[in-house]
């Protein structure tokens, strides 16, 4: 008795996998492109936030 046999009867399972892969790939690709393109100096200000003396 293998579960995979029953899965074959569920329509659209392949589609779900492909869709989520596509969404995630695009999201991560977008994020990576942005992160790598952004200049280091842009991050400097934000990364200093915990060190603000008044905190």
């Amino acid at each position, binding site marked *: *008795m293998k579960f995979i046999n029953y*899965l074959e009867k569920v329509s659209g399972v392949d589609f*779900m996998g492909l869709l989520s892969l596509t969404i995630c790939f695009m*999201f*991560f690709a977008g*994020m990576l492109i942005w992160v790598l393109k952004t200049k280091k100096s842009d991050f400097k200000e934000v990364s200093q*936030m*915990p*060190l603000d003396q008044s905190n």
Partner: protein
Amino acid sequence: MQVEKFYYDNKIVRAFGLATILFGVVGMLAGLWAAIQIYYPAASLNLAATTFGRLRPLHTNAIIFAFVGNASFAGIYYSLQRLCKARMYSDKLSWVHFWGWQAIIAAAAITLLMGKTTGKEYAELEWPIDIAITLVWVVFGINMFGTILKRREKHLYVAIWFYIATWVTVAMLHIVNSIEIPVSALKSYSWYAGVQDALVQWWYGHNAVAFFLTTPVLGLMYYFLPKAANRPVYSYRLSIIHFWALIFIYIWAGPHHLLYTALPDWAQSLGVVFSIMLIAPSWGGMLNGLFTLRGAWDKVREDPVLKFMVVAITCYGMSTFEGPMLSLKNVNAISHFSDWTIAHVHIGGLGWNGFLAFAILYYMIPKMWGTTLYSKKLATNHFWLGTIGIIIYAVPLYWAGFEQSIMWKQFTPEGQLKFDFMQTVTNIKPMYWARSIGGTLYLTGALIMVYNIWKTIAKGRFIPNEEAEAAPLVKETSHKKEYWHRVIERKPVTMLVLSLIVVAIGGLVQMIPTFLVKSNVPTLASVKPYTPLELQGRDIYIREGCYLCHSQMIRPFRDEVARYGDYSKAGEFVYDHPFQWGSKRTGPDLAREGSDKNRRPDSWHYNHMYDPTSTSPGSIMPRYIWLLKNKLDTSSTPAKIRAMRTLGVPYPKGYDQIANADLMKQANQIAASLKKDQIETAPNKEIIALIAYLQRLGRDIQAEPKPVAINK
């Protein structure tokens, strides 16, 4: 621009901080007590409330939700205000959150010791407490988002992203896994059964580690580490990648807790693949933390806060390397159900969570009392006791896990199992002693911290409201030329929604097909619902936490099939609300306990429950004397049958009204069989129900026609 003056609320941080210390000590004591019971069962005092099966959930819940939970809240309330340059949105909500959470902890402690449990690890709390958790969590969310919305800083620092992801994901996990049908005020059945229940439970269980024990603590790391080292995080760029990759990948990894089980193969494979991928973001985060200290290692020598952080982050790196390794099926075949898992968890728990909690306490408390730490030397002693404690705790358990697992799998040249189960247990007892010594050292360190903090508080003066100044946030009209992520960083609600989408995808892709499958699974014709007596017995099995030491899942390995019987099939569990597959085999598997191969007389079970060593010399199982005395509560039978019917268990209509008659009939039969073996007992005792349940395990499938091999 006009600078505004405002005050940070330190009182709420103090409250959560002190609660952290209190429950840390309580949780560790419970853990130590449970650890001692494993080699010295009499330490249970032969009382129901203090026996391992009830103490262990108390330990895990206290450490996860009371110790780490309160520590995270303390750190979040401290850092969120300062990163947002704003006082918490509402003091009232802060206190509702605090007292609500402590009330939940108190209710958890009482109900768990009473044996009120759903039987799902780390989600043991019964339905009214589940509802309370949801409400308090919403209060926390409103307070957190309210603060973020009224902030005086344009950008949301990366720590806050981790807090947001924590909030949204824990909400989702808790609600989905806690769907249950109440039977009485403190008893419910999981909505899901068998395979589905297992999948949902470990999706929850794994992500409780991810989003309750990891993401909030990473947020704390990103705030307190730069603070303590007085330098910005090594790479902010890396922290962004760390965040998105971590929350996305983590959510998929749950099925690695169910490798080689009856869970569908594709779901197991998904779990493995994503677990391996998890190394990347986890180690990205760890390296980001450790590299933050580059050029500042001299400070580590001086500052106990940094010492604790370095070991915490190192332990994070170790567990997040080990986790993916344990997810490989060939490694998991050895590690699963053994003490290896316990060792792994405690590298994370004692090292990562415990040490980071200690670090932030040592950081925040002197600051909030406007003083310095009473004794750096004592803190350093705490550090070393803790570190050595972790090693002495973990190394023997790795050894025990590996050795026992290898022994389970050994065959003689004649093809017989080389060791019986008891031999594999008595062999590792010394490792259990060593483990509790490690735990004692760790606890001693924590007690030193209590003293040190006590003295620090005594010499300082508490600053309830800390003054701060900042310019209000002005709304910018143009965001031109800005990248989308930069925009998201300013928008907490967008962040919340995006995080939810990212984490929901993993859960949905794994669950929907598994649920759809339900309608397609031809239940094994031979598998029938439990009889009313067996159902009551099963509830006793759950109440006493038997699943914490006994699995009900025979994996398709030669040794397991030889030892316990045919491997477990998905269709066998369709009436199991909740599933009881277990995650540890301190005792043997029970999935086929009642089958012809393993069946023992009723009197054996009776004697075994009264004194396990009488039937199994060398046994480390506690005595369950009260089961022989307690009268079975049959008044709950109709409600239980009705609840099961609602969940789709095919009891005939109106069966709830006559179920107790069947129950008594079966109980009388068992009492009669005991009498034959010179055991006089009334049929209305709890032990009778438990025997009925144990004798049922693995019987149905025997009636299933054997597949016939066809020679072509």
